[in-house]
């Protein structure tokens, strides 16, 4: 294999991923007249940001009294104190200006009578540090993600960003000194690999809930950036923390927004009981997502679930009336009718906790720089590499993300990272020599699937992996369950080399894409199980039945998972939580009740 054969394209910066985070960062760079390539495995408006429903959180105080300090407190508390308080302050401080900026870009927010942006209550929001419910989530009906993604794409059209649609990133190019020099990517239509050389590479590849059998996520959410980072020798942070959204449609997985409860919807069990009053007497249905998900799981376990199998509960909104449902929740009504066969104007929506969001990811600082322990400290920046959005772990969400904070994360840190890339490029004006062996390695990943015959299929192994993760690493976990899951995953992973494709064509070979995605999913599943097994406490979304309490003495720290080789395949390290905010006083960990 001769690497000189592979075409090379040179840019100032390359961005991998065309969702909200990638588009926001690209905009910052394009508007500064840099040469920026945005490569995305789907046309950008097919990215998963489009599925976000309820809104984007910012303390605009358009409806209730509010300020960013309260937003910050709620986010720290929601994270079960695992969030880094400097990054959380940065996000909440910049939230209002980020939302106004989106409005100026043209985002069609719903409006209040006085012409201001419409806001609705969401879970875990309070005034006065834990007091009355705050009304903080800015919305465009129940299609806020669609509005945000399309608006950002449209601004990038105006800024003439260079898009490489339907290009699949294979691997990072990283030299001996650890500097990242670009990516090797596959043009899906032609099946040809090419090298995107850039002095800065920004990953915005989104989440990976497709490791689970039931998930709210799009098919494309396979964590490709995370796989690339692990293969480049860098760690993943806090991979044991996955959010199970309380209200997904059973089996199908489609999300029913928290905005439904924000608008006044409530949960009932098969006896018609509003059971949240037993689990969160103050916040009721608007408690934090981990709390509500556990409550539903408990009801189902106790035999109070609805339906023949008793495996879901009901979400009721009939009392809101047809007018309000049509105006505020039209998309939810459509999804419910299409996938649950229930018109929420007259019938309850069946819902069950469903894998929704990855709190962990690629460790970064608040400038989006990818950080890892190298020599002098736990958070040394990797030159030339950035990560933003769900694929990154800043960490603003800690052990449990609050609703409405993910869209905010995308735009605040997309902008911040874009800004930092500008500075980095100014300080590093010249390209560095490309290590040929790295290019060849990436191409070998591709060539591996040319293997003519095998005893395993990609779809078969993926299905087994998803079942293992669903059964062994869901809402409730314990040592025996996790150990058994890891042993089973070992066996599935051992069979991966025996897998082969029956489609060896080049042009638009989606079977080969799914095979390449499976590499990433497997590595992420493994990181998740190993990290979850090691954390012997319950915090946020990570609930250990054998260790039901939070243990700040031992576990107020972030997990780092490295992918080694041979007997040392799984390596864990830890780093402290950044408890010191930028300017305000630390919110000290205390008992978390709603």
């Amino acid at each position: 294999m001769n690497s000189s054969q592979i075409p090379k394209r040179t840019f100032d910066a390359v961005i991998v991923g065309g969702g909200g985070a990638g588009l926001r960062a690209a905009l910052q760079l394009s508007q500064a007249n840099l040469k920026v390539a945005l490569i995305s495995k789907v046309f950008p408006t097919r990215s998963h940001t489009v599925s976000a429903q309820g809104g984007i959180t910012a303390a605009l105080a358009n409806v209730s009294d509010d300020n960013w300090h309260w937003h910050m407190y709620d986010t720290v508390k929601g994270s079960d104190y695992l969030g880094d308080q400097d990054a959380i302050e940065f996000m909440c401080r910049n939230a209002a200006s980020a939302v106004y900026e989106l409005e100026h870009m043209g985002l069609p927010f719903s409006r209040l009578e006085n012409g201001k942006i419409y806001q609705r209550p969401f879970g875990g929001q309070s005034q006065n540090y834990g007091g009355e419910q705050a009304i903080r989530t800015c919305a465009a009906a129940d299609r806020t993600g669609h509005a945000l993604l399309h608006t950002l794409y449209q601004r990038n059209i105006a800024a003439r960003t260079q898009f490489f649609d339907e290009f699949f990133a294979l691997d990072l190019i990283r030299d001996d000194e650890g500097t990242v020099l670009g990516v090797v990517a596959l043009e899906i239509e032609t099946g040809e690999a090419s090298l995107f050389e850039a002095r800065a590479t920004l990953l915005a590849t989104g989440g990976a809930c497709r490791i689970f059998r039931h998930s709210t996520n799009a098919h494309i959410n396979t964590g490709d950036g995370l796989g690339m980072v692990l293969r480049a020798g860098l760690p993943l942070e806090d991979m044991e923390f996955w959010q199970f959204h309380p209200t997904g449609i059973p089996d199908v997985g489609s999300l029913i927004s928290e905005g439904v409860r924000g608008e006044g919807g409530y949960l009932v069990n098969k006896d018609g009981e509003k059971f949240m009053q037993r689990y969160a007497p103050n916040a009721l249905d608007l408690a934090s997502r981990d709390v509500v998900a556990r409550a539903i799981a408990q009801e189902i376990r106790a035999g109070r679930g609805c339906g023949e199998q008793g495996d879901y509960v009901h979400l009721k909104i009939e009392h809101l009336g047809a007018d309000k449902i049509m105006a505020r929740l039209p998309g939810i009504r459509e999804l419910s009718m299409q996938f649950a066969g229930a018109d929420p104007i007259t019938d309850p929506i069946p819902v069950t906790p469903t894998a929704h969001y990855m709190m962990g990811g690629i460790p970064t600082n608040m400038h989006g720089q990818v950080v890892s322990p190298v020599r002098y400290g736990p958070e040394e920046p990797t030159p030339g590499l950035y990560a933003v959005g769900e694929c990154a772990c800043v960490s603003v969400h800690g052990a449990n993300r609050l609703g409405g904070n993910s869209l905010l994360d995308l735009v605040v840190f997309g902008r911040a990272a874009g800004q930092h890339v500008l500075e980095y490029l100014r300080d590093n004006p010249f390209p560095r020599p490309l290590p040929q062996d790295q290019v060849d390695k990436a191409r070998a990943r591709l060539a591996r699937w040319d293997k003519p015959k095998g005893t395993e299929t990609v779809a078969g192994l993926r299905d087994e992996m998803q079942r293992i993760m669903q059964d062994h690493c869901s809402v409730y976990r314990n040592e025996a369950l996790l150990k058994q899951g890891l042993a089973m995953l070992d066996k599935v992973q051992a069979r991966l080399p025996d897998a082969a494709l029956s489609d060896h064509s080049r042009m638009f070979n989606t079977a080969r894409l799914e095979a390449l995605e499976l590499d990433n999913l497997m590595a992420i599943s493994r990181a998740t199980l190993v990290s979850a097994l090691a954390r012997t406490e319950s915090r946020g979304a990570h609930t250990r039945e054998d260790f039901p309490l939070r243990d700040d003495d031992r576990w107020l720290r972030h997990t780092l998972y490295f992918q080694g080789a041979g007997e040392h395949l799984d390596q864990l390290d830890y780093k402290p939580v950044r408890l010191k905010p930028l300017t305000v006083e630390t919110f000290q960990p205390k008992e978390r009740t709603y």
Partner: protein
Amino acid sequence: MRFRIYRYDPESGAAPRVQEYELDFDAKGKKVLDALIAIKDTLDETLSFRRSCREGVCGSDGVNVNGNNVLACVTPLEGLKQPIEIRPLPRLGVIRDLIVDMAQFYQHYRAVKPYLINLDPEPENERPQSPQQRAELDGLWECILCGCCTTSCPSFWWNPDKFLGPAALLQGYRFIADTRDQATDERLDFLEDPYRLFRCHGIMNCVEVCPKGLNPTAAIGKIKSLLVKRAL
């Protein structure tokens, strides 16, 4: 269940063909996309199609099923006449199987300058907009760019390079209708053209097929009446 699916392999040099599949599948509550995935996973890995959100919001999987342009992921299998015939969206070039070349479609979209144009200094907070003004955008901004409408339009079939098509025109009007936008005249100048806009003859296929229930014909009508008003 029985399927007849359009196949085209660009590398084989062979002409497009229709392939039949017999799938053992419980269709209850399932959609066309579920069947396509089941065929790919269990019968024929080479069958190629686009998909992403699988819930009708990303617009990846527009296809023609039994003669109608639909999103595969929200079209129930139950009630479809068998064998279910699945073809790529009409009139666009086929890259492979059900995957069409959307370049022309996106070019028309970009041509209408689908972004807010407002040259005033940016205010400190949001630009105010009343709920009534904002309601003018409902039925416009929800477009998912799936291409079902444009590829069902005979005017587009005849002049795909010159007529912008319902999806692009809907987006053109979305910005004209936005009280925050200041480029109405410029937008109308561009659209006042015998082909770009006026090839629409109100056939309304677009309204019938739109999976989001939008009405491009009405939006096109509003553009036309604005042009008339401006001329008077």
